[in-house]
């Protein structure tokens, strides 16, 4: 009997009864599959993607191992798509590496076909099947977000970003996840969330500089200007010393932009942006830089609301340096619509009346909102305690602490050493 047919028979026989044994057999027959990869696609038809997920995965993975042309990709993509849809989560989780490499290849093919949108839904399904809980960051997360970015399906991407993640397999996954996630949030104008994600990248522990962190820092500066109208160059002290020392020197034009922004003078900002347009463009950040410039107008108008109760559109235009009352009206209108200021425009005499924030913190919704925040924070701090306890019982941690302090003293274990400031 042909060894391949024998293998298929074993897959069919063992899939229902003995997964670990099947896994052993499959691992052993890796070479066989590689040698025979041309015949594999015909074999696939004999297997059921749900029942025999494990075997199907192995054979499919092996069959796509070689370099692919566009035509081949066209045939393989539907097969992988349907497999991802149908496969059984328990079976594929027993050998995640294979599944991940299959999915990555799938992504490459979709990108090769220049139809990233075809990959978005399957990748999301794959990611859901692979992850053990919503707190788990799988290596497929960054792939999925990248496809979302390429396909401009920002909303789909956001659905994943809403989950808090705590468990990470590979730091690189986290860097990419947060970087792509930040870009998706920027695309959807969720600047606060974007800032959080980019902040994670910038402050993440790292022993050497990496390009992801540098790019993230550039975007972090810009988004911080858009969202808060200011940027402080000092990183929090929990950021890695590598980042503290090196990040700034890589992003000099951006830091200067932030300084120019800080002066509040729109002309200076515009000339600076124009003279450095090439730098920003080559970083693909020019769009964001433009948003920074327009946010300066907003910031200045917002400052006026602190000072004035009523102000004519003409005066607004003069103070904020807009071309005439018409433009000022557009800006104010836009800001009212976005909920950034509270005001009414009286078109008859061209006056704007600034109002106070109407939120009185008396509604049921507000109470519920506060309550849910409290619940959430309580859950978080519980998690923190658990984590703390787990670390203080961790064998590797304790042995390390013991080694660093040779004098064996019970007091040594009471406090977390300063080296581990998180």
């Amino acid at each position: 009997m042909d060894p391949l047919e024998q293998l298929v028979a074993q897959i069919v026989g063992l899939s229902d009864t003995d997964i670990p044994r099947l896994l052993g057999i499959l691992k052993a027959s890796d070479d066989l599959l590689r040698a025979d990869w041309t015949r594999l696609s015909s074999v696939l038809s004999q297997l059921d993607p749900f029942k025999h997920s494990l075997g199907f995965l192995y054979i499919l993975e092996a069959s796509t191992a070689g370099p692919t042309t566009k035509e081949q990709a066209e045939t393989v993509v539907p097969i992988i798509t349907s497999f991802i849809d149908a496969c059984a989560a328990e079976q594929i989780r027993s050998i995640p590496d294979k599944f991940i490499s299959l999915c990555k290849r799938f992504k490459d093919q979709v990108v090769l076909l220049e139809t990233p949108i075809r990959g978005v839904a399957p990748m999301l399904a794959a990611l859901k099947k692979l992850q053990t809980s919503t707190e788990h960051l799988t290596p497929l997360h960054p792939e999925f977000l990248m496809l979302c970015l390429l396909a401009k399906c920002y909303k789909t991407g956001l659905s994943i970003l809403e989950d808090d993640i705590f468990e990470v397999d590979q730091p690189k996954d986290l860097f990419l996840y947060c970087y792509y996630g930040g870009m998706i949030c920027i695309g959807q104008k969720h600047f606060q969330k974007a800032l959080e994600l980019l902040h994670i990248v910038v402050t993440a522990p790292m022993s050497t500089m990496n390009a992801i962190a540098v790019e993230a820092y550039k975007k972090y500066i810009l988004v911080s200007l858009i969202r808060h109208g200011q940027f402080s160059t000092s990183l929090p002290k929990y950021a890695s010393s590598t980042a503290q020392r090196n990040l700034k020197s890589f992003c000099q034009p951006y830091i200067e932009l932030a300084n120019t922004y800080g002066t509040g003078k729109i002309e200076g900002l515009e000339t600076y942006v124009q003279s450095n347009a090439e730098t920003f463009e080559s970083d693909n950040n020019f769009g964001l830089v433009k948003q920074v410039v327009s946010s300066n107008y907003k910031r200045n108008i917002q400052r006026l609301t602190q000072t004035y109760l009523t102000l004519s559109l003409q005066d607004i235009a003069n103070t904020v340096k807009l071309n005439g009352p018409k433009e000022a009206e557009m800006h104010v209108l836009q800001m009212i619509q976005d909920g950034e200021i509270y005001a009414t425009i009286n078109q008859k005499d061209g006056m704007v009346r600034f109002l106070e924030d109407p939120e009185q913190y008396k509604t049921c919704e507000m109470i519920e909102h506060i309550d849910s925040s409290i619940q959430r924070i309580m859950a978080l701090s519980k998690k923190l305690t658990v984590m703390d306890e787990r670390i203080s019982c961790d064998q590797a941690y304790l042995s390390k602490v013991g080694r660093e302090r040779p004098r064996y003293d019970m007091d040594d274990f009471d406090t977390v050493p300063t080296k581990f400031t998180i």
Partner: protein
Amino acid sequence: MEGDDETSGPMIDEIYANGGDDGNRNRRPISSGDQLDIEAYASLYTGRTKIARLLFIADHCEKNSTMELEALRMAYDEIKKGENTQLLREVVQKIDGRLGPNYGMDAAWCSTVDRRAEQRKEKLENELNAYKTNLIKESIRMGYNDFGDFYYAHGQLGDAFKNYVRTRDYCTTSKHIIHMCMSAILVSIEMGQFTHVTSYVSKAEQTPEALDQITGAKLRCAAGLANLEAKKYKLAARKFLETAPELGSNYNDVIAPQDVATYGGLCALATFDRAELKNKVIDNHVFRNFLELVPEVRELINDFYSSHYASCLEYLGNLKTNLLLDIHLHDHVETLYDQIRHKALIQYTHPFVSVDLRMMANAFKTTIAGLEKELEALITDNQIQARIDSHNKILYARHADQRNATFQRVLESGREFDRDVRSMLLRSNLIKHDYNLKTSRKL
């Protein structure tokens, strides 16, 4: 003009006499709305500060050539009394023949003075060397001190300072130390080295023996000047306010009592709050003696305190041109004036719920638009809690809603905590991962 002075002179004399001083103080107040009377001004001072002040005036009143020439003429006369030939040359250059042949370059005088200086220097050197070989401490101190005096008289301030400071090693009594400090302070003030002034003031104050009233007052003035130059107006005000009236004309090679009143009054006005202004300036019996010398400053402080801002600002406006010609206050007039004006604006708005900008502009003698700009700046700085109704020209006080602000803050800190804890957990997981990776590699 002259008649005015006759009447005001004795009056001040009389009041001043209450302060307990009995020197020759038949002087007129220097500060008035009219053009500065240079002669009267100069008569307040002696020594090099007189020349320096005159030259300063000459340099800073470009628009007024009669005044400039007057100042230069007096400076020339004053220099001729001393021995500083270098300064004479400079002044002659500045006069540029505009005052006739009498005020040209006096080469004969210069060469005599120079020759005499050369001889004197030689003599001093010989003396000092003799003292040094004999190792008599007191004589060496005297020798250095004479050298300091000599250089000071000839305008070589750096050398003078060095020599005065050198006497320090030979000081045996507190009196000597104080003498050394006073000389050093005098030279430093003229050099504009106010950090030296501060350090020597504190050195002099640290001497174990109690200082006599006059020295104490002098030190206060010097410290006040140093703080003024360092832009520490509040400290400067305190120092000037502490100055004892015994100062009188004893220190007019540096500062006149009128200056103490002006400097102290303006600095206090710019930096003190109402209670402090009342306690430390208006109710201050000691300082009142000084204020009487410059009635304008006294009046404007009282006006400020009783909220007559228009008249206060008017006084200030009148004083301004003359203050700009003051060698010490010159750089600080604008800042102090701005601060005083801001304080006036803040005080004006403070008690009201709503203020009509028209009335306020009237009270401050300014336009509504200008007032609006000033208020805007103050509101942005958070110095006035109010908002401007630019349509109806009314300023409304804004009372922060504590409840809403608290809610906002609570929600904000909740969000922050949430974010921080999440990223902290994530980071700790990453560190753990990294750490585990290392150990597994080692094993």
